[in-house]
């Protein structure tokens, strides 16, 4: 039951954080082993999903610090993502695809805690409060991390746009 309910959530969190499908599957397995060993520590009065995602987040960041994933390249965005519905405007579609690719690779340039906050808030659609609960920090800290992450990614997009203009 736990596997059916939570595999996709944990796997996607790991995939978005590491950028590697294979790595994410191995880490998901490690996280479930840790989950089974920690189940007796779960406080029944609390939100299980938030508790599990906090456990997963802690494990991912610990592994990141131990192995330094940021030095590895991420899989291409299109390698595993299902095909997105295109727009009628091909030029706009190309621009959106380029933005997605830049953001996907740009995640690797964010420090671990900021990257995780961006993944939870922006990609997984959690609220600031939910992100703070999973991250184990105050809401203000999450807002600050999201602000820094957004600004850094916007600068990456701006720089790419300037380089594109230079090339033309």
């Amino acid at each position, binding site marked *: 039951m736990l596997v059916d309910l939570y595999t996709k959530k944990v796997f996607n969190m790991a995939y978005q954080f590491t950028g590697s499908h294979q790595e994410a599957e191995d880490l998901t*397995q490690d996280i479930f082993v840790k989950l089974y060993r920690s189940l007796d520590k779960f406080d029944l009065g609390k939100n299980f999903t938030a508790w599990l995602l906090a456990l997963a987040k802690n494990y991912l960041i610990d592994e990141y610090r131990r192995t330094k994933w940021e030095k590895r390249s991420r899989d291409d965005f299109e390698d595993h*993502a*299902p095909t997105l519905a295109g727009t009628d405007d091909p030029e706009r579609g190309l621009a*959106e695809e380029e933005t997605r690719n830049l953001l996907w690779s740009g995640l690797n340039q964010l420090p671990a805690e900021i990257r995780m906050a*961006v993944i939870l808030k*922006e990609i997984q659609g959690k609220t600031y409060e939910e992100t703070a609960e999973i991250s184990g920090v105050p809401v203000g800290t999450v807002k600050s991390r999201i*602000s820094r992450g957004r600004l850094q*990614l916007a600068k990456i997009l701006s720089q790419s*746009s300037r380089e594109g203009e230079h090339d033309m």
Partner: protein
Amino acid sequence: MICDKVQNLLSPYLDGELAPRERAEVDAHLAACPECAGLAARMRAAVAAFAAFPDVDPSPALRRRLLAIPERSRRFRLDLDFLRRPVLQPFLAVAAGLLMLVSVYFASPGSFQRSINREFHRGIGSIEKIYVRAGSLTDRIGDLAVTAYDSAKAVNPIGRAENRY
């Protein structure tokens, strides 16, 4: 407003969390500064693009691996349960102590060997000093014996008596 300050406010600006006066100041700056306006537009595009990121499906093999975990985990726990028996606790405590000593030795084998060498040479030095002192003592005893013999010979009451008669 300077660009750095505005750029740090762009995130709450997009979230609609700025006070009206601050929001008006950011609006005024963005109208006059193309660079900050460009950043704001790209930040908005990034937020929209992230929201459209699709979930990725894990492989069916992962599901099978995950379903097999509880059984393996339980087997692993059973195998180690015997370690919790109270009768083993004193032995485990001694083993832990020995392991600590061994780990201290292996953590710093160089300094451990150096300290042994230092103590060994210090011991050798002490023995040499004792030997030298003992040698000088025997010399002194020898000198004392010679002096005593010479004195006795010089006094020699028996010899004098023999000479007198």
